[in-house]
């Protein structure tokens, strides 16, 4: 493919900003001849109207990154549990009345409830109070400590939240504290990805939750490492992906202060930390979905988690407490292209590869 004279290359661009309780890094990679989406678009344009092509302005990379980060700030301001002035916290103060909400909050809630429904409650946006009472009431980055003045309704579930799509209102049936952490972060990543779509090749890293667009610097699909749940700088696997999100939920972050063995992912069905898995990674078309399903899969554990992911048509990798790897059928790791030859696990639904536990290895 000859270089299109109308394609000006965008210099590699990288910016890191602290937002949403974590660090968000956006990098836009310069265009090479391997930027198919963009090149195609321009040649199409050339065909239809050759006169107009020189007028076509290269989108301003810096401006797009500005807008991308603005989404993070906007969605954080709306959905954070750590600011009593946020729309989410204002909503939780009004029980029993339909409250009109912004489209960000409505869509985030609607999606969270849909995932809750699909996962049988393994993912539940109403765990906010449980999180708070267990000491997760301090925003990591800024250190803000929040304690809501809520009566602890013992058994609230996602069914206590009603949405009305016509009037776009939210009705909370009982006092509850919503936690949209994962969904909001995922949504922000997706919105940022939309802003950056014109650049084709970019990566968004929001504290280990990723969206990878197009290709990396070398023109190859992005190579994504998956953190080893028990090793700080080690990876347990790596993947080659393009145009999708990769999110991981692990028990190694945010250890609970009030419990010895607690961490930040609660099993909404029991109200205590989930222990069926030590890490769950989901690869999905949107970060919102990947993040929510990673949490759900983590809570469900290897067998049920893989079953859920297979049913919903996304890919994932779940690490059991014995550091065994369970993957969906479509998950093929980067370094071992032939590793689809995965041993079928005794549990049937889940595919399993030998792990550190020293279980019999896989067929080679």
């Amino acid at each position, binding site marked *: 493919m000859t270089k299109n004279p109308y394609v000006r290359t965008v210099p590699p661009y990288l910016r890191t*900003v*602290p937002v949403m309780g974590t*660090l968000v*890094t956006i990098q836009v990679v310069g265009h090479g001849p391997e930027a198919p989406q963009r090149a195609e678009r321009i040649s199409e344009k050339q065909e239809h109207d050759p006169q107009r092509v020189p007028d076509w302005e290269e989108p301003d990379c810096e*401006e797009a990154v*500005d807008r991308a980060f*603005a989404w993070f700030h*906007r969605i*954080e*301001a709306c959905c954070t549990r750590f600011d009593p002035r946020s729309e989410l916290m204002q909503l939780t103060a009004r029980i029993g009345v339909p409250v009109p909400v912004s*489209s*960000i909050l409505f*869509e985030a809630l609607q*999606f969270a409830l849909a995932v809750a429904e*699909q996962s049988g409650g393994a993912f539940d946006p109403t765990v906010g109070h449980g999180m708070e*009472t267990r*000491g997760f009431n301090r925003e990591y*980055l800024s*250190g*803000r*400590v929040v*304690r*809501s003045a809520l009566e602890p309704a013992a058994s609230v579930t996602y069914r206590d939240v009603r949405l009305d799509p016509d009037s776009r209102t939210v009705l909370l049936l009982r006092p509850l504290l919503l936690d949209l952490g994962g969904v909001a972060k*995922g*949504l922000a990543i997706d919105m940022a990805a*939309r802003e950056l779509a014109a650049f084709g090749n970019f*990566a968004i*890293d929001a*504290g*280990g939750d*990723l969206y990878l667009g197009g290709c*990396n610097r070398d023109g190859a699909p*992005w*190579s*994504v*490492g*998956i*953190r*080893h749940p028990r*090793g*700080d*700088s*080690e*990876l*347990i696997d*790596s993947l080659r992906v393009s145009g999708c999100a990769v*999110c991981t939920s*692990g028990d190694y972050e945010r250890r609970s*202060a*009030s419990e010895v063995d607690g961490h930040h992912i609660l099993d909404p069905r029991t109200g205590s930390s989930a222990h069926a898995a030590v*890490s769950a*990674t989901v690869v999905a*078309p*949107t970060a919102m979905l990947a993040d929510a399903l990673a949490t759900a899969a983590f809570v469900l554990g290897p067998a049920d988690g893989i079953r859920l992911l297979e049913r*919903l048509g996304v890919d994932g990798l779940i690490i059991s407490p014995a550091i065994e790897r369970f993957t969906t059928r479509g998950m093929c790791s980067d*370094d*071992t292209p032939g590793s689809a030859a995965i041993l079928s696990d005794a549990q049937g639904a889940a595919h399993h*590869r*030998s792990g550190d536990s020293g279980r019999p*290895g896989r067929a080679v």
Partner: protein
Amino acid sequence: MKDLPIGKRGLISLAVALALGITVIIVDSRWTLLVGVTFVLLATGMLIGARAARSRQQYHFIAEPEFTREKISPNLVVLSSAAVLAIYSAGYFRTRAAANRLIEQAAQQRIAALAPVNAPPSPPEIKPNQAATPSGTPTPAEPPRKKLATRAPATARAPKAASDSPADPSAPRQQASQSGYKDGTYLGWGSCPHGDIQAGVIIKRGQIVDVGITQCLTRYSCSVIKRLPGEVLDRQSVNVDVVSGATESVYAFHDAVAQALSKAQGQ
């Protein structure tokens, strides 16, 4: 023909139409030929219609349960994409100025919130706060112990960061910090397994006016894939672009800010 759902009347009218058409065609006249062809076409149309009606009935039968099943389990992929579209089309910030205003607001909030973080164990500041807040909370005995414990990691990490710079017990010094900062721009480094982060803090008139990341050197390429026993694949050197699940960089940022602030205090 028997299973066609057109009934006796339909069958008779079909036969009449067909017969009429054929007779009109046989009677050789240019005028009537057209009418005959029309009748034949009409008859064919009726036949096709009847068949279609039958097959529609069958399709309906099979399709209905599937359709309802589809409705029960919405496609989450579609739902999430639709949500992104809906929000995007709501047009939150069409202009760069709007986006920048928002970023500035957020920065202000961050600065306001950051001051207490970097003075981790300042009891006079925390305790009144705790005394004030639990009024509405149902667990009055819990908060003090918990909150101190929550802060423990921050305290534990602070000396580590300070050890890079010649600063020592950061706690008592930072307690009096607010006014103790000297004006200027200060940089500090923090590191995590995946890279180093340099934070910059700008102090004006003794106050923090800006905090940000000035450099972010991620070095994922140093990472090693955990070799699993039993895997005998010849792996090339692993060089990944990004790591999923790696959130340690937040600690590195904290360390970097702590270091920058300790410099601002004249160390």
